[in-house]
């Protein structure tokens, strides 16, 4: 059975960095790393500088380094407002 997915958007003031369907997500929240799966309850969190890891439904992984920001988890839709974002883990 394929994993349930949700939409992940990562935007910085300068550009839309990523917009994809992913199955799971780990972000650096201010109070520690946070995992998000499809169907997560609505959540708003502040992020600190760190790495974002996401896994697509086919098992491939995406890694990004962000410089702080905010995350809004809505109805199967996650928006990350990052101050800056670079592809790849640091």
């Amino acid at each position, binding site marked *: 059975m394929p994993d349930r997915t949700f939409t992940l958007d990562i935007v910085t003031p300068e550009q*839309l960095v990523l917009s994809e369907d992913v199955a799971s997500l780990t972000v650096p929240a201010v109070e520690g790393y946070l995992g998000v799966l499809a169907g997560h309850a609505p959540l*708003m969190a502040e992020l600190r500088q760190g790495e974002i890891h996401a896994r697509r439904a086919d098992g491939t992984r995406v890694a990004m380094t962000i410089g702080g920001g905010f995350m809004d988890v809505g109805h199967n839709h996650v928006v990350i*407002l990052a101050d800056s974002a670079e592809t790849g883990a640091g």
Partner: protein
Amino acid sequence: MAGLRDIRQRIRIVRNIQKITSAMQMVAAARLKRAQDRVGAARPYAEKMAEVMSNLSRATTDISHPLLETRDPQRLAVVVVTADRGLCGSYNTNIIRQAVQLLRAHAELEAVVLPVGNRGPASFRRLGYTVGATFPLPSRDVLLSDAQAITAEVRRLFESGAVDLVYLVYTRFYSALRLQPTVQQLLPLQTPQAEGVATAEEYLFEPEPHRLLANLLPRYLDMQVFQALVESVASEQGARMTSMRSASDNAAEMIDRLTLSFNRARQAAITKEIAEIVGGADALKG
């Protein structure tokens, strides 16, 4: 009729000017393309930010934050985004006129102008307005930190109670031919209103809502100013491109006219010379 040499001289001058204006037009066109891309790239963040803000205001009932505090207005600050340079048609004039209109509408308030870009300060001083901090508008790409320099000053004024109301005047970019001087209220912050009814969904917050808001609102302010700067830069290049194109066209027209009068003068000189020779020959025949 002006001498042949004078006319030739003027043609040369106009041709040189035309070279400069058409070069400027091309530079502006290239910069416009770049600036236009930046405007497009900044939009998703602004939209998502508005979305997050409206979710947050829907989820929390009592939002209170220094940046949202509405006071009886006594003092006003106006941030005006002008260009750093001239030669861009009526771009600067229009934005300054818009700002003056706003200042006149609030004539009962004590006002301070915070100009962004070199073209602002002198104009506002000449018009008799108090000019506060001034900011440069970099000719490289606008960065978020450029916006943050402005918001830091604006927040300092607002939070210390030195001003009660802050407006932002900038030029909205719709297309190279459609530029709209725009007035926007910066502070107290106006959060995007949540549309539709409040959902029963309980939002989780990390950290707790008021601390989250305290960190999110300044970012929201930064983003609004950033967006305004990016749009202003695109507008400036659009205005410069248009005005330089019409300057080049005018120069071409002028060259045509001058060439015509040059040819006429040359012909008149030749005719006169022939008439003289013929006259001389007739006299010899006697």
